């Protein structure tokens, strides 16, 4: 042992070869940027052209039905992306993300209800359901619903704040794994029951509907529909870049480290609570934005959006597409929802069986989802 003292002083005595340390990876690869630009063009140029300019008889015409469907699926894709940040990267399976989505939707819905003005069935200043319940004035929590700016802020703030408070107590108490999932599930279920009640002031089980206009502009015109579609697409792409940036930073690597070995992370001097709370809140706010974009496009929001099954579906989209890849869950949301809109028309009674079988198949045979399969093919082909 005396003869080899190289380890004792490796830096000073032995001249060592220059070591290439890996630099920071780019936000997107060259091919990634190309695909991104194509996606932007598809959403912002091609879709409006095909829908508004190409005449309806033409084979290239994008029907209003397709625009509505794609717009809806893009909202779902934002949800799946948010789910990937918290589940795929941080290893925390949330079965309550539908709640944050619905909260964002309700905030937007309240604004849209106020925009109806006196054109409701009862010709009152108050929303119809309040007149029906014989309420004389707006409840306190509707105070900011006339302001569009306040609505935009609340769309982020309400889900963010609720997620923050819930997450703070859950993460501080070191609730993990399946227990956390069950509690989030219970949280969204409890919220659903609360929103079903008439006296909470959210329209009970009918929720909000019959929206007329947004910012004073009629909501049901082709132009507005297309605008919302483009806005949703751009939001999805923007969130994708944001998520890339988060994941690529050291922050993202700490998240993955928490997923793979939380105690090691703690003994490295990191407090996991702050990291989990940050990504959990960011994820919830993304869901809120998705909900706010969803409601004006589908024209209705009611408590069934908070049902546990909806939240579970989000997890399925992420799993089918491929976790911890960002692009995977987006693909998963399109594939599963595309299949859903086709199957529920063609074979309505089989949809749930199909969904269950899909989830089992993915879990058993495709642990890395569609993206993992594509990567394997690519590697096999080379």
């Amino acid at each position: 042992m005396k003869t080899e003292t190289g380890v004792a002083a490796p830096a000073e005595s032995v001249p060592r070869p220059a070591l290439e340390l890996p630099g920071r990876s780019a936000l997107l690869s060259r091919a990634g940027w190309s695909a991104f630009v194509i996606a932007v063009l598809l959403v912002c140029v091609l879709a409006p052209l095909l829908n508004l300019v190409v005449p309806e008889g033409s084979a290239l015409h994008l029907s209003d039905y397709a625009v509505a469907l794609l717009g809806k699926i893009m909202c779902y894709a934002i949800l799946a992306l948010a789910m990937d940040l918290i589940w795929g990267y941080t290893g925390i399976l949330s079965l309550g993300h539908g709640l944050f989505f619905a909260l964002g939707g309700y905030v937007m819905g309240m604004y849209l209800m106020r925009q109806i003005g006196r054109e409701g069935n009862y010709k009152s200043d108050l929303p119809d359901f309040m007149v029906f319940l014989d309420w004389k004035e707006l409840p306190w929590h509707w105070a900011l619903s006339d302001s569009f700016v306040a609505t935009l802020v609340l769309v982020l703030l309400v889900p963010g704040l609720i997620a923050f408070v819930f997450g703070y107590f859950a993460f501080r108490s070191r609730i993990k794994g399946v227990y956390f999932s069950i509690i989030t599930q219970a949280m969204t279920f409890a919220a659903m029951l609360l929103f079903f009640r008439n006296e909470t002031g959210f329209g009970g089980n009918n929720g909000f509907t019959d929206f007329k206009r947004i910012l004073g502009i009629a909501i049901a015109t082709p132009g507005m529909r297309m605008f919302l579609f483009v806005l949703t697409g751009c939001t999805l792409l923007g969130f994708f870049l944001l998520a890339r940036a988060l994941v690529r930073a050291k922050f993202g690597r700490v998240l993955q480290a928490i997923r793979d070995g939380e105690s090691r992370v703690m003994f490295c001097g990191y407090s996991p609570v702050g990291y989990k709370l940050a990504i959990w809140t960011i994820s919830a706010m993304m869901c809120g934005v998705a909900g706010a974009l969803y409601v004006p496009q589908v024209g209705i929001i009611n408590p069934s959006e908070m049902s546990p099954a909806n939240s579970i579906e989000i997890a399925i989209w992420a799993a089918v597409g491929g976790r911890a890849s960002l692009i995977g869950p987006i693909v998963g949301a399109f594939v599963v929802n595309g299949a859903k809109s086709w199957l529920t028309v063609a074979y309505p009674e089989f949809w749930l069986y199909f969904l269950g079988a899909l989830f089992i198949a993915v879990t058993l045979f495709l642990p890395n989802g569609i993206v993992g399969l594509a990567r394997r093919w690519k590697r096999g082909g080379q």
Partner: protein
Amino acid sequence: MTPDLLDEGAQRRDQLQAARVSGRTESGGRQAGFSRIALPGEVDVTHGRILYLEDVSVSFDGFKAINNLSLDIAPGELRCIIGPNGAGKTTMMDIITGKTRPDAGTVFFGSTIDLLRYNEPQIAQMGIGRKFQKPTVFEQLTVFENLELALKTNKGVAASMVFRLDSAQSDHLAQLLHTIQLAHDVNRLAGNLSHGQKQWLEIGILLVQEPKLLLLDEPVAGMTDEETARTAELFLSLKGKHSLMVVEHDMSFIRAISEIVTVLCDGAVLAQGTLDQVQADERVIEVYLGR
């Protein structure tokens, strides 16, 4: 008064004077006086002890895992801990690192920091690094990312979002990668390393945090003889700069690195001394052979 007695007296006076001037006495010299300033977060080792456990007890469901354990470690010391299974070695490390709260007793880091008041991340940031019995590295990250993550920097959330490696840190990482012999595996996923390499990577994760005290739970388990020998060299080179507490079962490894060996049994110190002294101790022979 004979001349040699006079000489002896003069020598003793010189030594005392020298010790006073250098500020190094058994009790910590002048710096250990009452008027010294205790800096928060700074480890105070003027009294010559970096880790100090006294009368620590902890029981799980009635089973006394640690039973009135008292133990202390000097700065720069390499202390080996041995003991039969269930002696409380890992539990002791759990207590020092904040994972387990003891029922009674005191645990001090230096003479001013009461470790029982802090949690795991805080204790890690103060400078106590820990290697687990089973090598735990971040399997889905590369070797480089593993080390970069552990690097001693601001570990807050906001700081992690804008973190960039500066040149001093990259030099440090490059040097460390050579020390742990993983320079050629920088971009490999940690999960694909061999068992011995994972052990080394975990030691690297500790060292990159620049800890003052390292707790190493069975660091050479599953290593080849050559890897074990290299680990022994590494630890000997760390001695002096860091304080180390090594729990091991491999006696030849302990013989290679140890000065003082502490034997734990049933949650308390059974014997302490050089390996030869300890191995000759009747009680130690009894607990090892009597079971």
